[in-house]
């Protein structure tokens, strides 16, 4: 697409408008794999999986840990309805690390009553948090 200024990206959480600006591209993780969205994308709704969200602006790149929600992609812009999303500055690294260890132990332990899907999501969340800090 030939637009110079990119397209509007809005990220909304239940408590605030997290981000609202022009961007050239956004990348994030979905249930179907990682995707990158450029202006002029076909209309699409995707469900978010825990991962890192990259927002490519003309001045540079922004990162955030995106954990849950869904995204509405339209040719003229992207709206991400995020249940949980954090800027790197809002993450407590030690907490994320201990959460990762806990989740790993739970998955490896394979106790009969372990909710594997939940433990995996917890692990993904922790990994996303740690990666976004690097």
């Amino acid at each position: 697409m030939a637009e110079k200024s990119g397209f509007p990206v809005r990220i909304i959480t239940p408590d605030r408008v997290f981000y609202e600006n022009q961007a050239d591209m956004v990348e994030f993780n979905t249930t179907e794999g990682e995707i990158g969205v450029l202006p002029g994308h076909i209309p699409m709704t995707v469900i978010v999986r825990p991962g890192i969200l990259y927002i490519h602006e003309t001045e540079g790149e922004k990162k955030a840990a995106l954990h849950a929600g869904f995204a509405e992609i339209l040719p003229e812009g992207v709206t991400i309805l995020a249940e949980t999303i954090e800027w790197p500055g809002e993450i407590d690294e030690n907490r994320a690390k201990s959460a990762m260890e806990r989740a790993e132990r739970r998955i490896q332990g394979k106790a009969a009553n372990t909710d594997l899907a939940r433990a995996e999501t917890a692990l993904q969340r922790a990994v996303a948090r740690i990666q976004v800090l690097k």
Partner: protein
Amino acid sequence: MASMRDIKRRKSSIQGTQQITKAMKLVSTVKLQRARASAERSKGYFTCMYDTVNNILQRVGHIDHPYLTPGESRRKAVIVITSNRGLAGGYNSNVTKLVTRHPQWKKEDLDIYCLGNKGRETFVRNGYAVKECDNDIVESPVYADAAALSAKLLESFAAGEIGEIYLAYTGFKNTVSHVPTLLRLLPVEVDAAAAQSEGSGEATAIMNFEAEDTEALDLLIPKYVTSLIYGALRESVASENGARMQAMDNATSNAEEIISDLTLKYNRARQGSITQELTEIIAGAEALG
């Protein structure tokens, strides 16, 4: 005529009450401002959520999905959001009346999920089945609380224990107008009129889904329910403080009225007693002379 002392006592008692109502009004004004700001901040999320889900349902209108068809059970779960404390005018009773005076509902078919102590009191007194009650949520609603509640309800909906889920709350239109609202959460109902007007506006945008339709609905609808509950909580808190502010404002001005009435009565009584004393003295002087 009441004695001067009685009037004076009554007046000072009402002045005390007025001070309390005045203070409560100020407190709820501040709380209202905060609650309204946070309700407005989160409003964007819910309108967006509502639009998206409506959009999806329009497109997959005939799909046979458990969340879109009423369950077998005749039982209905009703979430009722009230306040924990009273002195808010008709705020609490207006919401509970939506449930207790509903023309089609029978008491036996309802499972009440109370958020707020006042609602619980009313329903327990009237013999409703109050399944669960969480009073701390309403003080300062958190998204995780709404998520936990909706997960619980969806689970019993999926298990066939309940056939429908309703939400009774007070919508916040503006500071003076609060609308008690009853909303059906599940099965999801698509607002036909809104869907149409929206559809004509964005007829060109056909949504695609990466995930399968049913899968997308499985993931989206819990989020949708949660966000509606959370939004309702936020609006209810704003309404509660708005209602209390109004009630206390009325109480303060009523107290003002009574005080001015009593002041008049007091002055009249004082004047009466002076006149009486004078008459007695003059009468006494005349009798001597």
